[in-house]
C-alpha cells in the first residue's frame, strides 16, 4: 500500500511559541490513524498545516507523493483531502442539502456555466445519497443553523465525504456530541470506511 499522506519533521511556530515541533508520520491507503493529545498540544494546528490553512515554519507535507507546502487550501482540497472541524463549520443559512452540494466541489467552472448550469451542479443525487447514508433525510431541507449540535456534527462529517476524498482529517469528531449521536456518528464513519476504503486521520483527546 502506498502512502496517501506523508508528514516529515513538520514544525509550526507562532512567534516564540512552537505549536508543532518536528512531527513525522505517514498514512497508507485505507488506513485509520489516530493522533491523541491534550488540549493545546497542536493537533488542530497540525491539520491546518496539512490542509494549507497555515504554512508550516519547517518540514514537508506530501499528498500522494506530491509536495503540498505553499499550496492553497482549495488546491489541496482538489487533490482529495477534506476535513471536519473541531469548532463546527457549516453554512447556517443554507439547507442541509445545499451545504452538501457546496462541499461537493460544485464551484468548478466559469461564471457563465455557474449561471446557466444546473442549479445542483449535477450533485443532487450524490447529496441525496449522502443524506441517506448519514441518516439526515428528515432534516434535508432544514437550514443548517437550525439543527442541533449533534446534527450539525453529522452534517460536518457528511460534507467532508461529499467530494469522494482520498483522505479525510477528522478533528475531534466526538467533541461535544451526546452518547447516542456519538454512537451513530461512529457507526456511520466505520460503515463509510468499510464500504469505500477511505483513509482517515482522527484527532481526539
Amino acid at each position, binding site marked *: 500500500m502506498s502512502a496517501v499522506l506523508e508528514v516529515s519533521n513538520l514544525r509550526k511556530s507562532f512567534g516564540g511559541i512552537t505549536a508543532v515541533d518536528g512531527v513525522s508520520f505517514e498514512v497508507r491507503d485505507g488506513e485509520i490513524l489516530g493522533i491523541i493529545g491534550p488540549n493545546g498540544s497542536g493537533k488542530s494546528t497540525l491539520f491546518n498545516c496539512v490542509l494549507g490553512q497555515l504554512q508550516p515554519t519547517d518540514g514537508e507535507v506530501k499528498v500522494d507523493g506530491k509536495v503540498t507546502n505553499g499550496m492553497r*487550501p482549495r488546491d489541496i482540497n482538489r487533490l482529495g483531502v477534506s476535513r471536519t472541524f473541531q469548532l463546527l463549520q457549516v453554512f447556517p443559512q*443554507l439547507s442541509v442539502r445545499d451545504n452538501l452540494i*457546496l462541499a461537493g466541489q460544485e464551484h468548478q467552472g466559469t461564471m457563465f456555466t455557474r449561471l446557466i448550469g444546473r442549479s445542483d451542479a449535477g450533485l443532487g443525487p450524490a447529496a441525496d445519497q449522502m443524506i441517506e447514508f448519514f441518516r439526515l433525510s428528515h432534516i434535508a431541507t432544514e437550514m443548517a443553523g437550525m439543527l442541533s449540535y449533534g446534527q450539525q456534527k453529522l452534517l460536518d462529517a457528511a460534507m467532508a465525504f461529499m467530494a469522494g476524498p482520498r483522505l479525510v482529517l477528522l478533528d475531534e469528531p466526538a467533541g461535544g456530541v451526546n452518547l447516542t449521536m456519538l454512537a451513530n456518528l461512529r457507526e456511520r464513519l466505520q460503515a463509510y470506511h468499510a464500504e469505500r476504503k477511505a483513509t482517515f486521520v482522527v484527532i481526539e483527546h
Partner: protein
Amino acid sequence: MASFIQLLVSGLATGAIYALIAVGFTLLWQTSQTINFAQGEFVMLPAFFILIAMNYGAPFWLSCLIGIAVSIVVLGIAFKYIIVDPMLKHGVLPLVISSIALALFLKEAVKDFYSSQAQPFPVLVEASDVHIFGAVISSQSLVVLAVAIATVIGMTFLLNRTRLGRMMQATAQNPTLARILGVPVRRMVLYTFLLNAVLCAIASILISPIYLAKFTNGETLGMAAFLAAIIGGFNQVRGAILGGVILGILDNLSAAYLSSQYRAAFPLIILIIVILVRPQGLLGRVEERTV
C-alpha cells in the same frame, strides 16, 4: 378608498426602489463587512452617466446600458479595489469614514463638473393614467413597480437558484469554510460589488424621472436605504426588501393622512421602535461576534 389605493401603489413603487438600494447595502455588508455610506450617491451618479451618454447623441435605451456598464466599472470594480480593499485592512471604521468622504466627493464632483441644477430625466413610459378600483394610478408608478419587482425576483433567483448565487451566499455566511471547499471567495466578493452597482444603476433609472437628476439626491436615498436595511434586518436580503417597502408606503401614507411637514420623522420613529423592540430588525437574525 380610491386615494388610499393611489397612495399605496405609489408608496409601493417608491418602496420598491428603496428596497433595491437597501438590498445592495446588505449584500455588501454580508460579504465584506462594508458599510457604504455613499450608497445614496451610488444611485445619484448613474443618472448623470446616462445623461452624459445622451448628450453625446446616444438614444435613451443605449445610454441606460452605457450607464449600467460605467456604474459596474466605477461603482463596482474601482470602488472595491481603490477604496474598500485598502481601507478594510484597517478595520470597519476607516472604511465608514472613507465612504462618507466618497459621498461628499461624488456629490461635489457632480455639482462642479455637471450642474448644480436639477436635470430632467427621460421617463421609461409616456405618462398616462390607469384606473384601478376607481383609483387613478400613473403608468409610471406601475412601470417602476414592475421593473423593481422584476429586478428583485431576478436577484433572488440568482442568489437562491443558481450555483453562482449559492457560492455568493456561502462566501457571506462562512468565508473560511467556503475558501477551504474551493470557493473563489475574493471573486465572489467582487461579484457582490458588481451586483450592488447594477442595483444602484437600475434604482437610478427608476427614481430619476420622479426626483429629477440632482447632485443632492443621494442624501435622501442613502438615508432611506440605510433605514430600510436596519428596519428589515441588516443581515437579510429579504429584510432589506421588507424594510424598503414599509418605508415607501409609510412615507406616502403619513404625508397624506398625518402630516406632510413631519413625514421625514415617521421612518425615524419606526426605526427607534424597531431598535428598542427587535434590534436585529424585523427579519434579521441575531449575530454573535468574538472581539
